[in-house]
Structure formats: C-alpha cells, structure tokens
C-alpha cells in the first residue's frame, strides 16, 4: 500500500511541522510513504524533505506554475500522479484544504477533512460541529483522500530518512491560467493570529485589569504566542472582543495553551479544548480549568508569571 503525502512549507524553505504530522499519519495507512514537493526553486527544500524520517521516495515537481501553490495547477499535478497510490494525505491547513478537495473532485472521490485519528486504512475519526463532536467515518472510495490535523499525529523527525529523489516529468501544465497570483500579505502584527498560533496565552477575569495583560504579553513574546482572553475578561473590559476564545469567540487548537486566571467556564472550554497541551495557572485549586488541563500550577499569577517569563528567557 503506497501513500502519497503532499508537503506544505513556508517561506524560508521551512517544511511545516504539520507536513511532518501528515507523514506520521501516512505511515499508519500504508507501508510505503512517498512525499510530493511542489513549487518553484525547490533545491534546498528537496534536500531537507529527502531527510524526513519515514519517507521512502520524494517526488519533486518544480515549475513556475506552482510557485504559489494555487489549487488549480497543483490538483491537476497530483491527479496525474494519483494512479499509483491507495491514499493521498495532505495537511489540514489552508493549503491542504484548498487543494485536496479539488483533487477529490477531479478523481470523483469524497475527501475526508481534518482527520484526528486513523482507526484502520478506511476508518477515520474527524471532528464535526466545531469540534464538540467526534465522528467516526468509513470510506467506501477505492482511493482515500484525507487531510490530517497536526495536533494529534506526532511530527516525524526532520532527519533520519534517506528518500530517493525523483523529479516529476510530464507536468500537466495547462495553457489556461485560471487564477493569477498577485500578492502575499504576511501577517503584519508581531503576534500570530489567534486562530493559527502555535502557542496561545489567555487571561481571565482574575487578571484584574487590562494593564495586567502586559504580564501575558511578556510570556507571549518569549513563545511567539498569540494572546487570548475568556469572555469574563472581555466583559470586564480588559481586552476587546477579538481576543475572546470560546464558543461565542474564536476556536483555537494550538500546540500549547496557557490559561491564566481563567476558571474554565464551559463556553471557554468549547473554544480551546482541542489544544494539544493545556496549562492552567489559577489561585483557586477547585477551578474547573484544572480538570481539563495537562499541567496546572496553583498560585498567584503575579508571582508565577514573572518567574515563568524569566525561565523562558533563560532557555
């Protein structure tokens, strides 16, 4: 059983960790995992990709038409390679979710998005209803097309592999360019967007004032984290609505979520419970947030946060 993984990378020739999670997921589906690197000017990236642990073959499609990973040409490309694979896995990020379903349309397959668990080669678990429910589905398609979440599949090691590199020939480039790339606007803010951040540091009403959110910002600076807040903190006027994490706010699933002085109202939990690791800092040992956390510290945030900042700096 051969599985093809569509790699996703960012500027600066860095393969995204979620691609490495996709390789891990692919390893659960088949014995032979191939990776596909698409883009323009891929020399450095292909060297890196060939070392990814668990990949036996790396396909490289290097062409100007793929420079911006637009779904139309990339889906055409993957469709041209699909015949050799039982499953195709993409990361469940904006890129994967743009391309994979288009590919599914070309192949007449029902795609399976946001897979968080692979039960067997045709049975998958994926969240529905904004993550409040997990649905187990079985695919009757001969070829499985899935996008996988990074949080539940551990990223494979960046090195240790030695894939055979193969350049894809006969690229199916259409003369008709359906979409023209104009511009990439990288997030201006020094902080990542809440919904895409790898780390989120959130404060609740126990922060006591908007000034005290500076304490969170200092932690966030150390972790390149986004800042969030509970509804209680928003209602108390400490921060604006855009910061609100929860059922009526933003739903986040970072690798690390640090909840400071947040009691753990259900509305809040609905917005962050899919985070990979949750840390709670609260002075009330009975606070419900501890029940949904991986690690907790009971104590005064005004003592703990400066200590944490110092420890992060000293890393």
């Amino acid at each position: 059983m051969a599985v093809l993984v569509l790699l996703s990378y960012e500027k600066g020739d860095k393969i995204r960790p979620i691609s490495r999670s996709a390789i891990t997921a692919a390893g659960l589906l088949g014995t032979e995992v191939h990776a596909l690197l698409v883009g323009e000017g891929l020399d450095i990236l292909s060297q890196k990709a060939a070392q990814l642990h668990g990949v036996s073959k790396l396909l490289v499609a290097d062409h100007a038409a793929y420079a911006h990973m637009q779904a139309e040409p990339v889906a055409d490309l993957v469709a041209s390679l699909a015949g050799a694979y039982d499953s195709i896995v993409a990361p469940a990020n904006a890129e994967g979710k743009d391309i994979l379903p288009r590919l599914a349309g070309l192949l007449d397959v029902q795609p399976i998005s946001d897979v968080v668990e692979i039960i067997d080669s045709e049975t998958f678990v994926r969240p529905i209803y904004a993550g409040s429910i997990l649905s187990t589905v079985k695919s009757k398609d001969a070829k499985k097309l899935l996008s996988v979440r990074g949080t539940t599949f551990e990223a494979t090691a960046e090195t240790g592999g030695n894939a055979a590199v193969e350049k894809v020939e006969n690229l199916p480039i259409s003369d008709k360019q359906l979409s023209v790339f104009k511009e990439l606007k990288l997030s201006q803010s020094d902080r990542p967007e809440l919904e895409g951040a790898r780390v989120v540091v959130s404060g609740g009403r126990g922060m006591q004032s908007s000034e005290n959110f500076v304490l969170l910002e200092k932690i966030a600076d150390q972790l390149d984290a986004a800042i969030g807040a509970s509804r209680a903190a928003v209602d108390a006027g400490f921060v604006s609505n855009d910061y609100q994490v929860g059922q009526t706010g933003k739903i986040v699933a970072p690798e690390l979520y640090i909840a400071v002085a947040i009691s753990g109202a259900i509305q809040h939990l609905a917005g962050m419970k899919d985070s990979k690791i949750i840390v709670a800092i609260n002075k009330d040992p009975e606070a419900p947030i501890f029940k949904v956390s991986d690690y907790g510290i009971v104590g005064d945030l005004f003592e703990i946060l400066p200590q944490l900042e110092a420890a992060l700096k000293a890393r």
Partner: protein
Amino acid sequence: MSNITREQMEFDVLIIGGGPAGLSAAIRLKQLAPSVEICLIEKASEIGAHIVSGAVLELTALNELIPDWKQKGAPLDTPVNNERVFYLSSEEKSTTIPIIKSLMPAMNNHGNVIVSLGDFCRWLAAQAEELGIEIFPGFSGNELIIEDDKVVGIITGDMGLEKDGAQGANHEPGMELRAKYTMFAEGCRGSLSKKLMDKFNLRQGVDPQTYGLGIKELWEIPAHKHKPGYIQHSFGWPLDNSTYGGSWLYHFGDNLVSFGFVIGLDYKNPWLSPFEEMQRSKNHPVVKYHLEGGRRISYSARALSEGGLQSIPKLSFPGGVLIGDAAGFLNMPKIKGTHTAMKSGMLAAEAIAEALTTQEVEPISYQFRLRKSWLWKELYQARNIRPAFAKFGARIGTLYTGFDSMVRGKVPWTFHHRLADNEKLEAASACKKIEYAKPDDQLTFSRESSVFLANIDHRDDQPIHLKLKNPAIWKTVNWEVFHSPESRYCPAGVYEAVDTEEGKEPKLQINSQNCIHCKTCDIKDPTQNIDWETPEGGSGPNYPGGM
C-alpha cells in the same frame, strides 16, 4: 428615539407573544373572522424557544379550540396514567400523600396529558400559519405606541445596536406595527404589560401579583426506568415551612423526564438560592431514583404568576387586552396555566371579533365573557389556596387546602396577598445563611454548566437589557442590607457581586448574555430597581424540542 423615522405596517390585530395564549387567541380570532389580518410577533428566535413549563396539559381549552387536534397531529402522546404526591420530611424521608379525588380534585390528573409545551406551541403555530396568520419570531415588542390614550401598536426592538447604544454597521431600526387592537400575551411579567398596567392603572383595586420561579431540567433516563405517563409532585424538604414550593417529575416521550422545582418568590431569606434548592432537591431518594444513570439534556427557568383571581388586573384598555400569564391566569393548586392561558386568549379573541364589528375602542366584553366562563369558576374555586400557604406555612396550608378544596372554594372568605414579593425579603444579617454543597456533576450541577444547556444566543456587543434605574441603590440596599440577593435568585448567573474582598469597592457585574428571560430580577429586586427590557430580537435561550 422619537426622531428616527420608522417603517410602519398595519394590521387588524397584533399579538405580542407566541405562547399558548397568543397562539390560541390568533387561531380563535381567525376562526371567527377569517378576513381579519393578524400579525403575531415573538421575541424568541423561533416559536417554542422560550417556552418553559412542566408540563401536564388539561385538554379543556384545546378541545374547544381545535376539537380535531388528534387528526391534526398534536404532539400529545403521553396521557397521565399514574401519579403520586410526596411530602418530604427530610433529606431521606418521605410520606406518600394519597390522592383522594374528593379531597384534592386539583391534584387529580386523570385525563390530562404530559407534553413538551414548546413542541405543543410549535404545533399550534403551524395550525395558526395554516389559517393565514403571519407569525414573526425573532422580533421583540419594545415600546408601546399610545395615541390619544389608546394603544395603537408597538415598536419592535432595534437590531444591531452596539453596547453603548450607537447604531452598528448593520443597524436595522425597529418598526412600527400598528393595529386596531393589540393583544399582549408576553407571559409572566411582560415588559410591555408592566408599562400598560402603569399607564392604564390596571392594577387598581386588586392584590399585588405574587410570583413563583420555576426551574426545569430535561433528562434522558435509562429505558428500564422510564414509565411514560408517570407523574409525581413533592413538597416539603429542602424548603422550610415558611417557603412555598415543591418539585415535579414527569415521564414522557422518548425516555424523557421533565424535572423541575417551583419556589414562591415571596421567600424571606435573602441567602436562599432557588437554583441551588432545585439542585439539592434531586438528592432526595424519591427523585434521585429516576434521574440516576441518566443525562441532562437541557435547562430552563421562568417566573410564573401565582396570585390567582385576587391578583388579576383589569384586562382590557383602549386598543387592547392582556391575556395568558401576562395577566396571571395560572391555577395554582392545579399548578397549570396552559389551559387557562389558552382560554383567556380565546375569550379575548371573541371579544375582539365583536369589537371589530362594533368598532368600540376598548374590547370590554372580554371581561364579561371571562366572568361567565369555566375559567372564572375554576380560578374562583382555587383562590384561597396559594394565600393560605403564605398565611399558614406549608403544613397548615396543606390542611387548609384539603378543606377548601373539599368544599370547592365555597367558603365565604377570600384571603389576600398583602405585599409584593420584593417587599418580603428580610435583612441578610437577620437571616440564617444557607450553605449549599458543591455540585457533583452527575446529579447536581453548577449554574454555569446549566446555562450552557439553555443554548443561549445573545450577540455580545448589544446594549445591556437589564437596567438599574438608580445604580447607587445597589451598594446601599442590595449589597449592604441583603448581600446581593440577585446573585442567588438569578438562575442563570447574570448577576455577580465582584470586588467584594476587604478594602475594595463592591460592584454589581451584569452578565446580560447569560439571561434566559425568566424575569425574576424584575420581580424580586428589593426596591424594584432592576428593569428587564427586551434585548435584541432572537436573543435568549433556544430550548430544544422536548422542553
């Protein structure tokens, strides 16, 4: 407000509120006068979404309104087939009270049906729409339009206002809905009904209204325990002898159990928390047995009028009428208000059908029709029961009930309600503090997790709809005398006293987005300083089917 130009729409009759009273009124009116144009508005996002009731339905009014309800698919599938009443003497002990038909005719539920009142209202709404009645959920009646001392319609609430009242990008101004007659069916303590009572002195010469707060949970229980048609009521523990209230538990539908608790809002101890009384009442073996191993599906709360006949205001005024629990037609010994609400709506509809032909300004025949109806007779018989409890306490009150009911209310006296519920609270320092146990998350729950199950939709950045008339009073009265009773009586955790630590200035925080529209704050605030106004249309709980 007045300088906004608003769109206008005209109808023959406007109905405010899509509960049993409003819907029955609409249907009856259309039956009598098919050409009459009727518009019904409802503040909930859909019909039934704000409906809270036990509910055991007595079929009298429905049989008159839609005799072929069975053929029309009314969701009335669970007739009562077994009922019990318990007096709970302690947390562990109970006594079964035999239901002797002659002694307790009100408690005899033979022939009644256990329903989801929300589903029943959805069905009534479908019947109404088939008759051509325009029903608009998601629109609140926000202001009265009074011209020449006559109600000529209402203004619906603005949509898309920001927290400070400024018009947001999507602002949609409320519109004038005008009609020859407006029927107010807002339910207990309606915000426009309250204004009408003031404007037209409708409460002159009647007793103050007295209220209860009903808190209800919907459970799904293991099939082997489920006995559709079984109902039980309890009184006694955990309430003390001077506090009126008790629980209900009904088995119906698909493994569903409706469990709820009503507490008279004339309670005196400001430390009392109706929510927590309800939660702990589930620990009694007679209740626990049913719920254990089940799961809680939904949560709701609503105030109800308990005053009965003595507290019913004048019901008509130029341009309109009050119907249903907005007027206070609940039959307290029966603990039923649906059939009475429906009947009052039907009688008012008959009066308006007549008024439309005679063109009289005030549909006064509503009051005469009422006096001649079974509804009046029923409420007359019941009139002394609730005040007897207030007068004598639960135990003697029960004995009195037995006596009064045996003679079907044919006693030469009528007990009165002397004080309004908000006047009954005693100073916190003079009352015993009540310690409530922490929830176990199996049988008993926190307010927070409960409110979550009410499926509230409340756009966060709209203006706060719960207003303190005089904000300074909170500190000097609510905090210093009563120790913030609103943070306990509110079943949704809307009110929170914050910064209560030593050396800080205590403040009232209003979490208006938690509001489930029960209206208790408007009733029980010691100085009636809290005004409950309608939030943006469609706000509030979304009670699911089965509730």
